[in-house]
């Protein structure tokens, strides 16, 4: 199944990946090839087959609702590219003028 360049761009946007124009074209070819291969699954009649979402057969795993210490804030912030006043620093998400 061949993907269009527009579809590849849309997926890159959904995945929040900046891809260079030439990489979009390479990706278009490679993804189309892989999807072609994957289409072999269409050979199978699956109407009565339930999906397997996980293989543990465990359901509704619960734990006691007890308080336990979390990681110290400084340890967690130590890996942040930008921090300020004991918090992660990010660029504004909302445009105040919009």
């Amino acid at each position: 199944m061949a993907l269009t360049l527009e579809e590849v761009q849309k997926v890159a946007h959904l995945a929040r990946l900046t891809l260079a124009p030439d990489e979009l074209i390479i990706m278009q070819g490679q993804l189309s090839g892989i999807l072609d291969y994957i289409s072999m699954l269409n050979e199978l009649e699956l109407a009565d087959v339930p999906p397997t979402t996980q293989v543990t057969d465990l359901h509704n795993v619960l734990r006691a609702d007890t308080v336990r210490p979390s990681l110290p804030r400084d340890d967690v912030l130590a890996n942040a590219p930008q921090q300020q006043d004991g918090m992660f620093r990010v660029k504004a998400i909302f445009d105040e003028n919009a």
Partner: protein
Amino acid sequence: MTELHTLTIAEARALLDSGEITSEALTESCFERIAAVENQVRAFLDITEELALEQARQADLERQSGGARSALHGIPLAIKDVISTKGVTTTCGSKMLENYVPPFDATAMARLNAAGAVMLGKLNCDEFAMGSSTENSAFFATHNPWDTARVPGGSSGGSAAAVAAMEALGALGSDTGGSVRQPAALCGVTGLKPTYGRVSRYGLVAFGSSLDQIGPLAWTARDCAIILGAIAGHDPLDATSAPEPVPDYLAALDGNLAGLRIGVPREYFVEGMQPGVEATVRAAIAALKDQGAQIVEISLPHTRYALPVYYIIAPAEASANLARFDGVRYGVQSEGDDYWQTLANTRGQNFGPEVRRRIMLGTYALSAGYYDAYYKRAQQVRTLIRRDFQQAFAEVDLIAAPTAPSVAFKIGEHNDDPLAMYLEDVCTLPASIAGVPGLVVPCGFSEHMPVGLQLIGRPFDEATLLRAGDAFQHATDWHKRRPAL
């Protein structure tokens, strides 16, 4: 005395117990070996010599005063760099996490620490464990100790190469679709992917959450049994870890195969398999028969669908898991004009090509309008693959099969064709998809390169796998062959 770094874990343990060697001398021997061969092998991303020698001296002191904590007390091991190590950089082979220092230990790591193991350092791998050659590491390729022009396999290529090069007595790897088993085969060492849920995934940087398992690599099945015994068991921090009791794996190693029914699935001898690999694996199966196992041909009819199922499920789960890398809380950040541009630049510039490709594939498979056609369909076929194994294990105790269709290939050989690289995993994917355990033992050579026999077992029956692998290693000496580095 033999050079200490060449010992197996069981041999080293006996010498430590009898007081003939110290952990410090053993650990120093590993670092001397690393100094001698690492420039050819390049298995390590980080060597923690100071920490290791301190752990070794501590182990020696404790052993003198109170005896050994465990079979791993004072044993030098190395850890794949997708497993979180508190205070020690954990990069996942990615530029994204080049400077990331976890504030906590993975449960498997914490359990090795509690057992008193010595950590030599962190091992190279394909970026975020995505690959079959370790060429996808953002830092450098690892070389196969048997022929340094060839790949060690992947994604746990650093783990397999470090053991094969005798730089470490054992290692932890992780296996999502074959990432412990295929490099073990290509480097001529023993490797185990446990049952899904057998070992906690807490602190294993997530790739495909319904598939990922941490597993040991070492020279022998016995050594893998020792490591598995230390890391297995329920963990409240991983809701998918199994509450099943952990048996005494060493007690299961009776050297006996008599009465065991072993199935050989005809579908695993795939078209395009190298004749030398097939002949070597068939000879190993004949050796199992000579030891008293009953060999029966079986069919796992949906084997050929494992690859397409995997390349939907694993990338889909990866695309969700890797959404966390936003350049805000950890990892690197690549500036853009606004928040969204910064996010997309961070991810576009710091994930490597294979990781970007899998995120794209997974995002597409989960996107509106395609979910039923891809992800749900793959999960339905996953049911069929699982049923294949359930039916087979009603008849046989174990399955014996090849691990990979070829011996280690040349570095750069599969660079331009992702699908050709994916085909490397065709024999290991079904057990991953079904969640059942797989053990690889060295079983001979083809073109002067190692070949591995894959044994697949019932869920949570690692004991029988290890027993069969150990018995095979009583009758053969392939696990005693060492590369001439």
